[in-house]
């Protein structure tokens, strides 16, 4: 049992490597925020494409469904490896896309962002879909009878209500996304878990990993609490009979 505490709770090791681990955690946060925003946007687009009405839109719906199936089916780690391994060789891509060195972040960072956004976009698409379907049919009927076109009805009536309904699962997926950023370490991005492992390899002590876990929890728990409060406030305002 002593070995356990020595290995995972050595405060000297934690202190000595604190700034390295913290720097890497900042990378984790950046990865999560940028990929998260992109995934949210992509997911909404996919969900709307998937729900496009009419026979003419059948190929569009089909493509959206195929995309969602593909990226929900392939593990994120594989997507990361496939993208970073293949992009440099895809001649038809312009140079800035093949080895994107933008905003001071190296190409591997952007491969990571792309992989996470593409994958979580698929998950978010399904969450949006559930939200859209949960909006009562009466809403769109009323909108149409008021003369709104499909697009206008979506923008002003349906989508706002849908989004409000799906905030909890959205948040869950975002927390999952934030944890999944650790997968990009395999292509060389030093995010917080990798930083912990580098300390482990050099000091033969695993306490930096414990530190990484603490940092994660420090961020995800307050996030969850904030949104819990948002939900109950919203419920109080919009639903009768709920206290």
């Amino acid at each position, binding site marked *: 049992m002593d*070995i356990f505490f020595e*290995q995972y709770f050595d405060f000297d090791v934690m202190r000595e490597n604190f700034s390295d681990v913290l720097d890497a955690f900042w990378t984790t946060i950046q990865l999560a925020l940028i990929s998260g925003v992109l995934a949210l946007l992509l997911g909404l687009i996919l969900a709307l494409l998937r729900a496009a009405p009419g026979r003419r839109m059948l190929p569009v719906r089909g493509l959206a469904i195929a995309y969602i199936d593909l990226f929900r089916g392939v593990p994120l780690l594989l997507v990361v490896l496939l993208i*970073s*391994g293949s992009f*440099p*060789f895809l001649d038809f891509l312009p140079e800035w896309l093949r*080895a994107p060195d933008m905003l001071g972040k*190296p*190409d*591997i960072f952007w491969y990571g962002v792309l992989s996470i956004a593409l994958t979580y976009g698929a998950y978010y698409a399904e969450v949006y879909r559930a939200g859209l379907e949960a909006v009562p049919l009466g809403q769109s009927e009323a909108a149409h009878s008021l003369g709104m076109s499909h697009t206008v009805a979506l923008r002003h009536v349906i989508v706002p209500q849908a989004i409000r309904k799906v905030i909890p699962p959205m948040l869950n997926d975002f927390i999952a996304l934030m944890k999944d950023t650790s997968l990009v370490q*395999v*292509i*060389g991005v*030093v995010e917080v878990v*990798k930083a912990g*492992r*580098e300390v*482990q*390899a*050099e000091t*033969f*002590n*695993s306490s930096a990993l414990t530190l990484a876990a603490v940092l994660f929890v420090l961020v995800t728990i307050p996030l969850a609490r904030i949104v819990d409060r948002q939900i109950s406030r919203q419920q109080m305002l919009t639903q009768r009979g709920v206290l």
Partner: protein
Amino acid sequence: MNKRFLLFLLTALLLLVGTALAACGDDDDDDGGGGGTDTTAADFDTLESGTLTVGSDIPYAPFEFGDPPEYKGFDVELVNAIADNLGLEVKFVKTPFDVIFRNLAQGGKFDMVASSTTITPEREKVVAFSDPYFVADQSLMIKKGSDIKTVDDVAGKIVGAQLGTTGAAFAKDETDAGEVRTYDLVDDAFKALQTGQVEAVINDCPISKYAERSKPDLEVVAKIPTGENYGFAFEKGNDALIEAVNGALDEVKQDGTYDEIFEKWVGSDPCESIVESE
């Protein structure tokens, strides 16, 4: 059959399969009372009596690679020869390099580590080493067409290495590299070199030289004479086993077996002809 019964059956089946797999997966190793039966060996213990359990980061060609259970390579054959000498069977346990010393030091996982491991003072704080059995240098590998020729040329550039190796330590402490990227497997570092994500790889010379065979677009352009010694690693305090292995290593060197293995896997020093770079 109704739905509920079906669900119950499925759950029961899964639990059953799961338990069965768990039960036959791990063979519980009891404390070995296995002794050496050889003339030079003192009495030593191994985790499993009669077997030398060896941890190794496989693949790291040409020292340890191939498919289980018959791995190939310099370390593999040398370990086999030593174990033979001591009257022991060998069991290799694949372990990632970045945790190999930690796992060894914690005890209970393997008797010894044979993984092209360099003897360093930092490592000697947590594990004990046998006598050196190989002299290696680090090397600088680039993709053909690069204008990096010496270690000084990597200043400000991105260098790749394997996590936890002396190559990674050298890159971080002794070069002016702009960034040192560590990878779990050395092959990942080579791959990154091929795709241009890193501009050089610093790794043990024999391994990088061997990799040139399967990756003709990569080239070892300079040798970094660190004169590192590989040693087998043991749990600290396991003196009896260390002594036995040292004895066996000595005999293997003297009876020509070592030279045979060296000739087969390393040949004439592949790194001899490479330009030295300070």
